[in-house]
């Protein structure tokens, strides 16, 4: 239990995927202009990450011990197809949820955060439960980062910012400041 808690908190705050591993930066910088969009994108991320963790565990336990060289290709293809499959199932079973998350799913399937999750959790030798908790933490962390940045960006829109710093430059500097704040979470779990 202690161990699971550490995995969750570590992925959520201390080693946040976006703010300390720089994964999933494209949606982070490109999409997160609006608070609500950012939040929904984050939820979609959690959803895909959970599927990814399950796929990665299955592949790693039953396929990759015989053929480690297929790791990358199989991760990408299996994750992409399973997300597509789940998306179709979702469309049938829960149209509401599909409407909320659906448009984001193709956008984030096999982006760096998703593949990074699969690689990191297999590198660390996580089992199924640990992998799912890790995915939950990592997805939550990405959501948190997206929402925080979107919140700040909504405010900057009404400010008078010099031309040269607009766009990616100001976003990166804001992200740097948020990332610095997140450094304060280090040591949270050890006393």
């Amino acid at each position, binding site marked *: 239990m202690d161990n699971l808690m550490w995995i969750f908190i570590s992925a959520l705050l*201390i080693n946040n995927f976006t703010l300390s591993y720089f994964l999933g930066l494209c949606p982070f910088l490109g999409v997160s202009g609006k608070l609500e969009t950012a939040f929904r994108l984050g939820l979609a991320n959690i959803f895909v990450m959970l599927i990814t963790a399950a796929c990665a565990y299955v592949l790693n336990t039953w396929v*990759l*011990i015989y053929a480690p060289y297929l790791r990358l*290709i199989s991760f990408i293809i299996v994750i*992409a197809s399973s997300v*597509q499959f789940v998306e179709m199932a979702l469309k049938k079973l829960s149209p509401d949820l599909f409407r909320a998350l659906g448009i984001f799913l193709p956008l984030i*399937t*096999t982006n760096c955060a998703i593949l990074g999750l699969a690689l990191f959790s297999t590198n660390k030798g996580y089992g199924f439960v640990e992998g799912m908790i890790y995915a939950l933490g990592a997805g939550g962390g990405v959501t948190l980062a997206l929402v925080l940045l979107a919140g700040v960006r909504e405010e900057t829109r009404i400010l008078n910012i010099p031309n040269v710093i607009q766009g990616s430059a100001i976003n990166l500097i804001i992200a740097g400041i948020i990332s610095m704040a997140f450094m304060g979470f280090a040591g949270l779990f*050890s006393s």
Partner: protein
Amino acid sequence: MTEEQSKVLPDLIEEKEPSSFRLILALGIAGLMSGIILVGIFIYTNPMIKANKEAAIKRAIFKVLPGCETYTPLKLDDGKLIEKVASDDNKEESDKEELLIYAGYNTNKELIGFAIPGDEPGFQDVIGAIFGYDDKENVIIGFEVLESKETPGLGDKIFKDADFQTNFSALAVEPEIVPVKKGEKQNANEVETITGATISSKAIVKLLNKSMGVWQTNIDEYIKENKIRVSEKHE
């Protein structure tokens, strides 16, 4: 990127459509070619990668067990330590889940101690380390960090600070290793923490205590079982 990649999905579905034999053929050829390249590079580099890994472990063991000349890996099987025999080459990935410790021998083939790996959450991320344990004296005789993302300039002193390393030249493990402030070490079972990196230092102490708790009884039993150092133990 994502816009480009999103196109992957429709393609994957179309691939399944029976009318498009050519699509399947094209992907099949691509897969076949990539398979040949991958297997080729794997067969070529795998021995080297294995040798590199082994060399890294060897270097660490020799460092934490001064005077060590040869070593044998031991694994836990049914609650007992047994020598691990080199397993199937294909299944090396599964080695990660298997817990191993290493018994080190000197030039006269005498057992001088055990190298025990362990990990523990530190300040930033999990710290992985290996330490040398002398079962005769019941002390830790060497310590080496294998993996750490501790803060540069502060937490990374656990492997950069020479003073901290001297803690582990003869550290008694019983009754328990205790962290104390710098300059306050009085007993053999105390570790002086690093100023400014208390959490990282305490994580190391925790790691040592945890690993000793896991392995000590097994090691004692292993020694009894194999009748190593019988004469010494009787004294």
